[in-house]
């Protein structure tokens, strides 16, 4: 029994192998008109090196995968929604000329083939794995939507962030209701993997907003990032109260008490200009951070110390660990 208690207190690695996918542009020193250094999707499996997969296309904003078929990822890109399969090598643009400059993508884990993406002029949804699309933002006043997430508890429950705040829909995007951060540009949203009713939203200038009522309402989480821009949020899969936030100014900030207090963890990073953070689900304590036009950095002690991990000169706007086999 005592051993069980000790085990319960230790961070638990999430079973299975993962590949880290990144949306990367290698832009340091780049001059408009010159040939762009390899950019696009770089990926790395557990023990492997970085590999540039597929096309040299820098305009990638976000990615997601279908947990039932994680070999296929969906990428929000300048050219549209990309379906990227065969470990990054096979690409297809699933959308047409009616949408441009996609900003975020979210796959509904409870509805096979249902994909939402946000873009410059709203939100679109497909219920047939990208064969056809329809608008899911007609009732939103302003359309530019930087963030979209599907509530993993129930199909059709959505949380989105646009220039007027955080909005929630319970009917797949037909009707939206303001949930918080009114008048503030929302840049990113995440739902806790441990508590599906706990959400965080990162904003432009307004700091973090949190919801403890399943995304129905969001309130300011404090001063972290206020006056600066926060671009990413990562929940540690192995520790319910540990969350990381990335931004310009704060750099990497980590909480161990689910947002009550935050510590800046930038010692060893070249600059507090961080686009994205991600916890490695297979290695408790390991976290990645992308520093603008410097490199991807890795820490094995939850951000207390950092070391370069490749992708030098890059800006990794978003990264995600994708399981190598379907999750059950």
């Amino acid at each position, binding site marked *: 029994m005592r051993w069980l208690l000790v085990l319960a207190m230790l961070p638990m690695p999430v079973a299975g192998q993962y590949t880290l996918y990144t949306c990367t542009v290698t832009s340091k020193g780049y001059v408009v008109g*010159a040939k762009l250094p390899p950019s696009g999707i770089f990926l790395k499996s557990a023990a492997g090196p970085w590999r540039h997969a597929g*096309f040299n296309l820098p305009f990638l904003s976000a990615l997601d995968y279908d947990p039932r078929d994680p070999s296929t990822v969906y990428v929000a890109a*300048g*050219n*549209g929604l990309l379906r990227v399969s065969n470990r990054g090598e096979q690409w297809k643009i699933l959308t047409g000329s009616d949408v441009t400059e996609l900003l975020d993508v979210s796959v509904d884990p409870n509805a096979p083939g249902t994909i939402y993406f946000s873009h410059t002029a709203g939100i679109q949804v497909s219920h047939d794995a990208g064969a056809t699309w329809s608008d899911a933002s007609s009732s939103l006043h302003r359309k530019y939507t930087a963030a979209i997430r599907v509530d993993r508890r129930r199909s059709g429950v959505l949380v989105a962030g646009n*220039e007027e705040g955080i909005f929630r829909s319970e009917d797949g995007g037909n009707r939206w209701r303001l949930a918080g951060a009114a008048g503030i540009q929302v840049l990113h949203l995440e739902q806790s993997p441990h508590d599906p009713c706990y959400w965080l939203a990162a904003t432009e200038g307004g700091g973090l907003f949190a919801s403890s009522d399943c995304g129905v309402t969001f309130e300011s989480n404090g001063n972290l990032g206020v006056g600066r821009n926060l671009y990413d949020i990562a929940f540690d899969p192995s520790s319910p109260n540990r969350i990381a936030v990335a931004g310009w100014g704060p750099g990497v900030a980590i909480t161990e008490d689910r947002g009550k207090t935050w510590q800046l963890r930038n010692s060893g990073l070249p600059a507090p200009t961080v686009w994205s953070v991600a916890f490695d689900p297979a290695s408790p304590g390991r976290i990645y951070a992308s520093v603008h036009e410097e490199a991807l950095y890795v820490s094995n002690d939850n951000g207390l110390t950092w070391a370069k991990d490749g992708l030098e000169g890059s*800006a990794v706007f978003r990264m995600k660990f994708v399981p190598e086999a379907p999750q059950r």
Partner: protein
Amino acid sequence: MTRRMWMWLCAGMPLSRPLGAGTPEFDRRVRSVIDAYAHPKGSGPLGYANIAAKLWLHEDLALCSRSLEELLAAGPTGDMFWMFPITAIAYLDKGQLSASARQALRSSFRTYMPYRGDTENHWLLYYTSLYLMAQMWPGQDGGQWYTGKSSEENLREAAGWIESWVRLTTRRGQGEYDSPHYMGLYFLSMSYLAEWAKDPAMKKRAAMMLDYLIADYAAENLDGIYVGAHSRVYDRPVLEKWLNVSSDFGWVLFGLGRPMDPPDSYIIFYLLASAYEPPEILKRIATDRSQPYTHYERKRTRNRWRFFDDLHGPVYKTTYVRHEYAVSSDQGGALQPIQEHSWDVTWNVPDPRGVENTLFTLHPYSSLVELETYFTFPADIGISGVVSSKKSYDSPDKFVGGSPFEKIFQDRDSVIVLYDIPPGTRFPHINGFFSKDLVDLREDPSGWIFATGGDAYIACRPLQPYSWMPIEGGGKRLFSPYLKNGIVVQVASRSEFTGRDVFQRAILALDLEFHLEPVPSVRFRSLNGRTMTFTYGEIPQVEGTPLAYDRWPLFGGPFVEAAVDSEQLILKWGKMRRTLDFRKLTMTDTP
């Protein structure tokens, strides 16, 4: 009747400008540009434009194949700016390239994914090229295309967007309107489709759009120079206007002005495709400056993704043109990001090379809000990202860019420009460009500044104190660090007065009242004898009648006419008429 009105009526000027004595005919102008690219000076490697020109001339075919393979082996770059040259090469090939070069070209559309871009010209280049390449290689599955879509899917998507662009343009105007630089990309895209599209409707639509686009330029050119206002123009050519792509098109299409040396690459691709020679009516419109005229256009803003309820806002243009000069403006505001040019005076010169034949003012606006309105890049790299390619964007002494704090009112050759810049705004001053090529600039104790540009007499009345700053390369910058500000400008032809002193006395005799608080406001009785009333933020009035923005035509004036939403355009010169109807895809000429 005022003296100047009488002089207009009595003016006995030639109906249209004949070609200059040394100007070659159209075919020879075309050939000279193609020769310039086929036989470039120097011994460097051939570029895509050189290869395309040589293929057109059927020469050096082995070199063309080898050069093309080398370029493609190095890896395509440039996205849609790579697509359009390579598409021309594919169509000019006609069996001349080696099999391996042709295969390399084909493979590149499988292995290279161009970015579709974020700008109107990007999309038109992208979809024009994709359309033509999908047409060239039909029946191929998605595995053969970077899009992952079949030839038919690519063709359908591209055709759909091109048709929607034509529809929007002929209903609400271009978003990237009247750019003396980017105009070349629209011209060449339509030239490609008019020449190489197999679908008769697409071919016809493109041919008609060539007339449409050329007319848009023809009515607002002064001896080949595209007069303002512009959606986009670059730092140097906004001053030395000859340095714009419009100079190449003015010379090739109409024999006007002087081409750049060498001509810009946009014109070569226009010529290698259709080399469309404008009809007589367009030549007349482009060259007839026998009578002064006012030309109106309605355009639209670029896509406004944020901060506005409407994706496109209206742009109301007024352009006054006569042989000696032109005055042109939009209504002011941040209608376009970064490179907007909202108003100017342009005077005619016999040889524009090296001449800065323009005068204008602006508020040097630099703001993340502006960038976020039109672009999607993250806030923290917004301004720095723009400055990496548009160097002057965040400079206090810049000469391009619109401002939300600038409002403009033009009536014929009189302009009132008002500024109400909020405290705390970055760069809280206005700049005025006073060219090195202005003659006899005098500051009158009354507050008026007088100068002569070519045969244009120009009078400017800044509403606040100012100082002069030197400009590298010549000329001087009017610098006025007052938030509530403005300038009144009146232009006249030398031919209307017996001398500059007479002009000055006429200006000083005009009624001018203004105040700056609570907002700038001007009442000005112009040389035309019309009273202009303009208060910042309010609708301007002429003779007490508010401007009818709600009835502003898509095109209006003596040469070009179109109603908003009509999808029609009527070209007019004398008794000649050409009517373009894009709904029916018909073109009717009378007589």
